[in-house]
């Protein structure tokens, strides 16, 4: 069985599971969970087969994409076609989403055990998985957009899962509306792309919109501000990614999305859905990276890259020859890079001053997504995707660890009220520590180190500017700092649970979570440790696979001066961050109610960060207020301007209807009634002939006979 031919079944299983469990009664908890998990396991199996297929393909003909297109419907002469594809990018993402998804589904069985809407939860989760997997395999921007919107819908449903909490309902709306802004731009990009190239298929044997012909056409079209059409469309599509992946300035929904159940945060708002934006940028990378001929670019290389490899240019792999001949970087990629690094720094800063355990992780996600964008912008698809994959595992791990902590601390989320949990929850602590070190990028044994190192390396060799590199270092420092702060406050020091003002009584001590929650944590922790070794400079298998260039083990690369310097620098930064964090938060156990150490050092900056840079307030004052004013104006116009018109029409209509009614009642009804009455009387008369007297009947026949004969004879005489 060819795994590619049945690739469409990967999203089908969760979709069926969602459909069936939507019909299940609320009491059917076990079947719902079983269905969802079983479907996910089937999808995982198929994804692994697809990965094997992709690996074979990479061996036999590297850099090719397998596609299968089919017609969907016809408008006039044009067929709208959809399709699915399989390339290393898709294969790796499929396995990641299925694997992380499966673990989170299992974890949810424990986490949601006491929820009365358990069945609905699994229905939504399955629907989400189906949409996400569909997004990954689609070979058409249209199909991708459909799945993209479905993903947004399920995200809305799941953030607002506890919709009886006003904050959750508000967060769901915020997430939906904010991402819609990005999606609007995305849709515009799609429409533009379609009108310019006539196709939305990515790869279509040379006729797809990501292939040389279409891109060359787009590059030749110059639009108003001097941009090429390719750049403009890229930027519009990137705006969609900005919304979905929580990039500045549309990131504000993501921290609020933490109102959803923690497994949702782990699956959707950390590991998979938010990565969809990054995935989108990676998918349309050939379009993003395209540079017009007039600028001195190795055209062949671009053409080659866009025609064969969907993902990236070999020259941008994070190996040491990246900076050899400074190529011209497209405007779109510059925007991606700057947006990414700006987001990374800003979100990392905000994360320092947050006290909600999930919110910190949420800002950390925003920040890491920024890193991924920067990775794609500076180093190409492989760099960004490598960080995406490793991040998915350790961020899912961290979120589920946080969930375990919240579960163990009886729904407490404020890290200032925790402390000392490592004694109570040893497994959670260990796995959480692994996740934290992976995220911080502690050297050598943690995956985050290698993937972040690759990004920094690529940024270092980025031709347009070196500023992203230094900002990236600052981001890494901040990351290490806030993660250390969080771990110190949660797991070290004296237990403070129950000492908060809102707890009048001493609650029972925190407890370790059940096995169904802890085992997925351990599996994810193992992945957080091991995955890094797929992409070290010594053996860049991941990069080779994505770029279709192959790879080999060469320990010498590790000791190359440049690599060593880079690794040393990043290790140094991380160690500095960890030490600082420990200095402020781990050395002495903080006391409840005492202000944060950073607040004492610099109150202004701290409160700026604590309030998320006042961005929500700015949006409130500008966008929301402006919108409200506009709405009020419209309402005024509606009531007074249109309202009076409508009223005038209403009275005119009423008058007419009244006349009509008169006609109807007296003329039409009267006549009809008269007619019906006449019919009834006729009926009475005719049935009076039916008097039951046979003599009369027989006379009747006789009369009828005579009459009929006369009529006939009279007629034939004519």
């Amino acid at each position: 069985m060819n795994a590619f031919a049945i690739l469409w079944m990967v999203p089908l299983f969760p979709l069926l599971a969602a459909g069936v469990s939507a019909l299940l009664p609320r009491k059917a908890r076990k079947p719902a969970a079983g269905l969802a998990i079983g479907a996910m396991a089937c999808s995982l199996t198929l994804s692994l087969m697809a990965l094997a297929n992709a690996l074979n393909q990479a061996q036999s003909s590297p850099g090719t994409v397998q596609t299968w297109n089919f017609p969907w419907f016809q408008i006039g002469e044009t067929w709208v076609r959809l399709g699915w594809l399989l390339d290393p990018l898709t294969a790796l993402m499929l396995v990641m989403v299925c694997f992380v998804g499966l673990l989170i589904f299992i974890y949810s069985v424990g986490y949601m055990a006491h929820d009365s809407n358990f069945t609905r939860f699994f229905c939504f989760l399955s629907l989400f998985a189906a949409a996400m997997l569909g997004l990954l395999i689609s070979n058409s921007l249209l199909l991708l957009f459909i799945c993209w919107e479905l993903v947004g819908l399920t995200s809305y449903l799941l953030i607002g899962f506890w919709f009886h909490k006003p904050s959750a309902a508000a967060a769901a709306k915020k997430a939906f509306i904010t991402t819609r802004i990005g999606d609007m731009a995305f849709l515009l990009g799609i429409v533009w792309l379609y009108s310019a190239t006539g196709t939305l298929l990515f790869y279509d044997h040379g006729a797809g919109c990501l292939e040389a012909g279409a891109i060359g056409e787009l590059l030749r079209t110059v639009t108003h501000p001097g941009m090429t059409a390719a750049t403009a469309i890229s930027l519009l599509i990137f705006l969609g990614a900005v919304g979905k992946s929580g990039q500045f300035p549309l990131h504000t929904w993501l921290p609020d999305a933490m109102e959803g159940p923690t497994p949702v945060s782990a699956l959707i708002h950390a590991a998979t859905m938010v990565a969809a934006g990054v995935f989108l940028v990676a998918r349309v990378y050939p379009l993003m990276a395209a540079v017009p001929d007039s600028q001195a670019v190795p055209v062949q290389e671009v053409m080659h890259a866009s025609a064969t490899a969907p993902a990236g240019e070999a020259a941008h792999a994070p190996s040491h020859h990246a900076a050899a001949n400074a190529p011209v970087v497209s405007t779109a990629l510059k925007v991606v890079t700057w947006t990414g690094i700006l987001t990374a720094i800003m979100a990392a800063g905000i994360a320092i001053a947050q006290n909600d355990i999930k919110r910190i992780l949420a800002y950390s996600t925003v920040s890491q997504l920024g890193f991924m964008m920067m990775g794609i912008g500076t180093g190409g698809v492989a760099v960004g995707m490598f960080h995406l994959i490793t991040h998915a595992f350790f961020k899912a791990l961290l979120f589920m660890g946080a969930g375990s902590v919240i579960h163990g601390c009886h729904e407490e989320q404020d890290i200032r009220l925790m402390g000392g949990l490592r004694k109570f929850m040893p497994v959670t602590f260990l796995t959480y520590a692994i996740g934290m070190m992976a995220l911080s990028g502690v050297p050598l044994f943690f995956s985050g180190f290698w993937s972040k190192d690759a990004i920094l390396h690529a940024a270092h060799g980025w031709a347009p500017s070196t500023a992203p590199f230094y900002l990236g270092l600052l981001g890494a420092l901040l990351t290490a700092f806030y993660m250390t702060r969080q771990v110190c406050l949660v797991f070290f020091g004296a237990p403070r649970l129950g000492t908060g003002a809102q707890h009048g009584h001493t609650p029972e001590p925190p407890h370790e979570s059940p096995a169904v929650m802890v085992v997925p944590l351990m599996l994810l922790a193992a992945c957080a440790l091991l995955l890094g070794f797929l992409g070290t400079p010594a053996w860049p298998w991941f990069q080779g696979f994505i770029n279709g260039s192959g790879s080999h083990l060469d320990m010498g690369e590790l000791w190359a001066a440049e690599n060593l310097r880079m690794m040393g620098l990043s290790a140094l930064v991380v160690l500095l961050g960890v030490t600082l964090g420990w200095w402020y938060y781990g050395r002495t156990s903080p006391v409840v109610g005492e202000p944060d150490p950073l607040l004492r050092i610099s109150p202004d900056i701290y409160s700026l960060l604590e309030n998320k840079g006042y961005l929500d307030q700015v949006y409130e004052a500008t966008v929301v207020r402006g919108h409200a004013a506009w709405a009020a104006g419209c309402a005024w116009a509606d009531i007074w301007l249109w309202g009076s018109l409508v009223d005038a029409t209403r009275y005119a209509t009423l008058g007419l209807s009244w006349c009509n009614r008169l006609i109807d009642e007296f003329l039409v009804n009267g006549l009809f009634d008269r007619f019906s009455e006449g019919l009834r009387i006729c009926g009475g008369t005719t049935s009076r002939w039916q008097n039951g007297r046979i003599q009369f009947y027989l006379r009747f026949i006789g009369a009828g006979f005579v009459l009929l004969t006369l009529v006939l004879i009279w007629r034939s005489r004519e």
Partner: protein
Amino acid sequence: MNYLDFFATLLPETTLVLTALAVLLVDAAGLRELKTAHRILGASLVSLLGCALSVAFVCMGHGSSYLLDGILINDPLTRLIKVAILIPGMFTCLLTPGSRLRAHPGEYFCILLLAMTGLLLLVSSENLLVIFLSLELASMCLYILAAFNTTDARSIEAGLKYFLFGGISAAFTLFGFSLIYGLTGSIDLRPIAGALGQSTDPLLMVAVVMVIAGFGFKIAAVPFHLWAPDVYEAAPLSSAAFIASGSKVASFYVLARVVITGLGGTTGVPGSQWMTLLAILAGSSMVLGNLAALTQTSVRRLLAFSAVANAGYMLIGVLAPGSGGLPALAYYLILYSITAIGAFGVVALVEARAGHDRLDAFSGLCRNSPVTAFCLMVFLLSLAGIPPLGGFFAKFYLFAAALRASPGDPLILSLVVLAIASSAVSLYYYLRVLKEVYVRPVAGAEPAPIPDLPVIGLFILAIAVILLGSFPQWLVHAVESAQAASSF
């Protein structure tokens, strides 16, 4: 001519006659000691078996044969009509256990089977003498069936009325036949048609009116319909059901054959004498039937007037020049007989528990027997011609065929318009029954439950009505290909 052919052609009729004797024998020999209900059941099973065998023999027949100069005809259309007579006959057997027979079940079924034999012979001949004899065989049997409840004065009265009325009509028919024989010197339809040509002899007019008066009695067309409400109301229910379904199919078919083949209609000349006559019959049947039905309170009488009205619609099929209306007429006949027998079946069930058939006996039916109520709804709405039920398509097909066969003929057009208008009126009285069934609460004490077995039979009929309406092409195809292969 080969006597073996003769025997093979008559096999269905022979089977029926033998079954009739067998029923008598079984009842007399084996069942005499049992309770009446069981005797009825046993006899009805034997008769069912016989009918089924007969249907099988009919279906086994193939090709067209024309024996003894048209004394005996066996062609696909005739076979189809025979099946359409035998199937209502079978359902009549099924209905009989519920129709309050007190005695002589063996004789009842024997006579029923003989009546069916008469009807089968009636449709398979072009010879006036055979037609008259088989018509009389069937009629005599039906008179007895109508009067079978000898303990019920109303039943006897109904039988007597039917007999007197029928006797007079038969006299008319025979007189008409003998006049035709006198005018043409033949009793076979085709030579008669040849000899008559376009004659306008007043004697022929009298003959035509007399012949049509006889058949008008059988099909209950105005002004020869007066027996129908009384007989439908008071005869044992199964007899009434058979008179309304099987007998009607055969009479219509033979009427069409006599007027189209025998009285010069084959030439398709509009204005043949009988056309005017039939048009008058059709129009007055539609109008009078529907109007009189409006004021009825007895559901059986209501069905009787509805039958009169339907006879009017079906006459349009006979009027269509040539044989263009024939497939549509056959379709309508089959559909009508299924629907009528189904409606009578529901009436039987309701009557069995309420003791009468007035409208209030039906109130609240949908609450204590929703399936029966559903079946009744299907039958009545089909009679009213509501899509997607069979009755709708039957009307549509009939009117369309008539209009297509005679484009621009004002007579047919005005009849079709009249038919459509009067069937709009008919909806009123059908809905009155359904209003009792679905809207009115149960009157008085909770009535006894309705037995399941008959309901299953009715449900099958209702499904058939729905299917024939939704997928009419099955039957249309069968009817059209049968007609194409027949000499009619």
